[in-house]
């Protein structure tokens, strides 16, 4: 059975005008099966709502999913707000449809990694565990 102690908490958020969350749910399930507590925000969140949820839920990781093309604007806003709330230690990951040329830009604003279509969910789990070093 499960032992008590620290648990990795992850917020999976869907930003803006984008109603497709199949990918976000697949990732959420994979993280759940890897023993993490996954909080799902639901659709159409504003950057303010995402950051406030992350704050209240005291998460270690935020996974942002976006397929609409507004990633640069919205992700930048999320990163700014996290800084404002002194939540820079939260690891932010991105997924969805992100063009190759934007990957560098997103990393520059502090997104830890971008996981595009076709990513093996195991890689996301490994990435998070390695970054947090809470688990082997």
């Amino acid at each position, binding site marked *: 059975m499960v*032992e008590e102690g620290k648990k990795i908490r992850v917020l999976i958020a869907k930003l803006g005008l984008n109603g497709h969350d199949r990918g976000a749910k697949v990732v959420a399930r994979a993280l*759940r099966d890897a*023993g993490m507590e996954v909080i799902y925000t639901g659709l159409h969140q504003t950057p303010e709502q995402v950051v406030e949820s992350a704050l*209240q*839920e005291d998460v270690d990781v935020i996974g942002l999913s976006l397929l609409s093309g507004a990633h640069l604007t919205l992700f930048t806003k999320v990163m700014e707000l996290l800084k404002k709330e002194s939540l820079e230690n939260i690891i932010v990951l991105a997924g969805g449809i992100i063009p190759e040329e934007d990957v560098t830009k997103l990393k520059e604003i502090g997104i830890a990694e971008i996981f595009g279509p076709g990513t093996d969910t195991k890689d996301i789990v490994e990435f998070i565990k390695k970054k947090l070093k809470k688990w082997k």
Partner: protein
Amino acid sequence: MEIADKILAGDRKAIAELITLVENNSPKAIKYLASIYPYTGKAWVIGITGPPGCGKSTLIAQLTKEYRKQGKKVGVIAIDPSSPFSGGAFLGDRVRMQEHSGDRDVFIRSMGSRGSLGGVARATSEVTKILDASGKDIVLVETLGVGQADVEIAKTALTVVVVTMPGTGDEIQAIKAGIIEIGDIFVVNKADLPGAEQVVANLEMMLAREGGWKPLVIKANALQNLGIPELVNAIQKHLEYLKESNQLAAKLKEKTRIEFMEIVKQNLTNYILEKVIAKHDFEEFVERILKRQIDPYSAAAKLIEKL
């Protein structure tokens, strides 16, 4: 500023961090909980329980809206099941509470049950205290929603709202012990579905009690915001009833007694386990029990004798 002072000042980040410490059973949490304890006891804790899919989260979102209209500050604790296999959890109650995620006077925390039975997480009672000390007037606790065994909430909440809906079974379900006995108020949600009147009638028949508080039955449609002011009203009536009948004082004393006893038991268990396991007697006994040299009942008695 100490984390405890920050919580008293309503600092959201401090609230969130202390909840994590409590959930993780961190030794630091005890110290902080102790320092905020004198400032607790102001919030009205309302438990919302009922089967999965009956609309608890939606109802909580609407209740929160109603209380915010009255200028009250609201805390929400939403518990979802943790996997007994991986320990992971999918916490999805926020999805229905989206409209409040920008409101700084609403604090929503999702919790995994982390192996606890009875519909709430081990740390639930402590988390209500943190929200209470931070100045919330109302704390809404949403239980797991596994159904008939979600009765632990009655130890934490002052008012228990049991949510049900048409189509979950006939009156035989309503006669069963447990959930039906802990409710102060019953909500028949999704009352637009056929059979709602029958559910209300069954409940009213089963709930007929002699003397004391007579549980109220309310028809609602949380999605359409129908029946919500009536529910808020019913909760208020229950609160006034408890105060006027002098039952509140007795209820609070009983809660304090149960909680104190549980803490004593927990400390005692930890103390004994540390002593026993540190001495290796425990493992020795396991070996002997395994070889049928001694039975576990006599072994337990011998082990305790040694203390």
